[in-house]
């Protein structure tokens, strides 16, 4: 299947994902580009493969993850530091190998310091933040090289939340995996459930009815609205404008309640497989119209606060060249003129008037504006979907054989899932959260900005830790 490309730099393939599979005698490294999938072999005794890092900077985390998961060495790579395996990890354990027991009890080993990327020079100092941050926020580490207030460089270090989910799901059927998959990342539960359901439908060679797609579309867009409202509140809040958070967080709450009314759960966990609740089409449409009014009011209000735009304009710029080089996805890409939205490729969305939203300045302001435009558009889409949506349930399959993949545009961007099934059970589960790519590009937005703007820039990208760390 051909995926949406970059639009601009057509000669270059976009790297979507790279992961490995244990094939017994050897390891296979699978690389998914937008235009093709390639497979390489790595010998089991001395597993090696050529690195893509020099050509694709975002190959960095993929390859370091494969190195930790399988013990494969990438030749020509410029970064060999462990990624998932932190200071106290017992060296030599590669959990994604088939002979590693998922229940193995690991002992904490000697502390081995991690060597952070840092800029040297007179008067340059380092600031280490995390893994536990000041607010109510997921754990991760940010390492800054500073010249006074100004950020010279920043390294993102994650995987504190690494739960071993890929391995956890092996040996389970899709039906058994579904409740876990719904909880990989609470921010994108609906999107991840849909990705799994699309694979389940492929396994059973079932066409998804338009009525069912409409129902899922409603939930997916509500998830996006809840998420975008939260960001539209927190971004101004990080610039010192708290009133926006008070307003937007109330709208996010109302959206969660709408999800609860439709699915019985505020985050729509397990919503796809649950018997849908009776719902009132007209009521949902009225709700959308009301929420659109709120969005309009918010837009007029916020557009009128010059001191806020002063903080957001030209802050944390991601050039479109950099966005393409890293293969960025989601709002982050679209705010830097990269035309990429999975929904643009789905006939169901296209036929119902879907239009991707874009900005070109690549700064915090652009990401803010894209979110607001998307939120308003999602409300229009829900109104359309509501007219066709059914109350059908969906049953995940217990069977299946072969390799499958799916794409969904989550509120954070393109979500990619690949699953191999043997005798109805998962033998390899892989999911690439949109954040896994975007986190790697975050440091490009820092140089020239002051450290006080980091929270603002970070929030404008709104990336997931849980989905990234697995």
């Amino acid at each position, binding site marked *: 299947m051909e995926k949406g490309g970059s639009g601009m730099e057509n000669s270059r393939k976009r790297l979507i994902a790279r992961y490995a599979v244990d094939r017994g005698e050897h390891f296979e490294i699978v690389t998914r580009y937008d235009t093709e999938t390639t497979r390489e072999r790595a010998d089991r005794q001395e597993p090696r493969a050529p690195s893509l890092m020099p050509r694709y900077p975002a190959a960095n985390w993929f390859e370091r993850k494969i190195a930790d998961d399988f013990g494969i060495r990438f030749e020509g790579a410029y970064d060999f530091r462990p990624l998932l395996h932190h200071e106290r990890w017992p060296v030599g354990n590669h959990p994604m190998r088939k002979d590693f027991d998922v229940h193995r009890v690991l002992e904490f080993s000697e502390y081995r310091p991690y060597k952070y990327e840092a800029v040297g020079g007179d008067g340059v100092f380092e600031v280490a933040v995390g893994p536990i941050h000041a607010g109510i926020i997921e754990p991760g580490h940010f390492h800054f090289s500073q010249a006074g207030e100004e950020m010279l460089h920043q390294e993102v270090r994650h995987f504190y939340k690494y739960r071993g989910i890929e391995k956890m799901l092996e040996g389970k059927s899709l039906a058994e995996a579904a409740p876990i998959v719904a909880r990989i990342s609470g921010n994108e539960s609906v999107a991840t459930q849909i990705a799994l359901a699309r694979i389940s439908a492929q396994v059973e060679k079932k066409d998804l009815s338009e009525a069912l797609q409409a129902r899922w579309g409603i939930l997916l867009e509500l998830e996006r609205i809840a998420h975008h409202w939260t960001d539209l509140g927190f971004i101004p809040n990080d610039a010192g404008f708290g009133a926006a958070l008070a307003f937007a967080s*109330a709208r996010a709450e109302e959206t969660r309640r709408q999800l609860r009314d439709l699915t019985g759960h505020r985050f729509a966990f397990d919503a796809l497989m649950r018997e849908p609740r009776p719902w009132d089409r007209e009521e949902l449409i009225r709700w959308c119209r009301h929420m659109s009014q709120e969005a309009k009011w918010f837009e007029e209000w916020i557009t009128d606060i010059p001191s806020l735009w002063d903080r957001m304009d030209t802050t944390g710029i991601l050039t479109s060249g950099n966005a393409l080089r890293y293969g960025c996805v989601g709002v982050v890409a679209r705010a830097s003129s990269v035309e990429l939205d999975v929904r643009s490729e789905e006939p169901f969305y296209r036929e119902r008037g879907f239009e991707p939203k874009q900005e070109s300045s690549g700064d915090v302001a652009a990401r803010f504006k894209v979110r607001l435009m998307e939120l308003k558009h999602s409300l229009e889409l829900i109104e359309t979907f509501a007219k066709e949506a059914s109350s059908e349930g969906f049953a995940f399959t217990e069977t299946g054989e072969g390799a499958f993949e799916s794409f969904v545009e989550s509120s954070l961007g393109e979500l990619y899932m690949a699953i191999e099934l043997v005798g109805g059970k998962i033998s390899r589960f892989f999911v690439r959260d949109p954040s896994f790519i975007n986190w790697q590009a975050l440091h490009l937005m820092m140089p020239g900005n002051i450290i006080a703007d980091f929270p603002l820039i970070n929030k404008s990208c709104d990336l997931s830790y849980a989905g990234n760390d697995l």
Partner: protein
Amino acid sequence: MLRYWQRRFKTGILTEKPEFDARMKELRKRLKKGIAKHFAGSLAIRMVDSGSCNACEAECNALSNPYYDLERLGIRFVASPRHADVMLLSGVLTFNMLPHVLDAWEQIPEPKWCITLGDCPAMQAPFTRTFAIQAPAAEHLPVAHHIPGCPPSPNTIIEGLLEFLETLQNGKQGTGN
């Protein structure tokens, strides 16, 4: 800005559940000495995510939205463990987070209490245990109270915290290491 104030007057106050205020008032009365001694009239919570899906955090953040407005109950989320009375722990306690969680716990001055939030730390969420998971939390920390749910809704969290205060009133002491 004028638009904002017009709107503000029209909307009024969204905060619900006035019974919480009443209950808290009553509770405050009953806790008089205990709370005054331990918490100086306000309970400071350090939230620590040890490997959640982030929905538990989202619900804690929701506690500050105008519908719940938790701070009016005298309960605050603080930035440093050194300012905290309570560690509110979410997530499955990953292998990579456990040392940091224990670190944060050490930093909280005594008396202190550990409350687990959501099904994850009790290993009651759908996740099955792996090499990378160290939950249940009670194997590593003296858990004083548990707030169940996946995730617990903002109302459930508020009720859970009040329940915890009630157990204090019944004489349960803070735990050290």
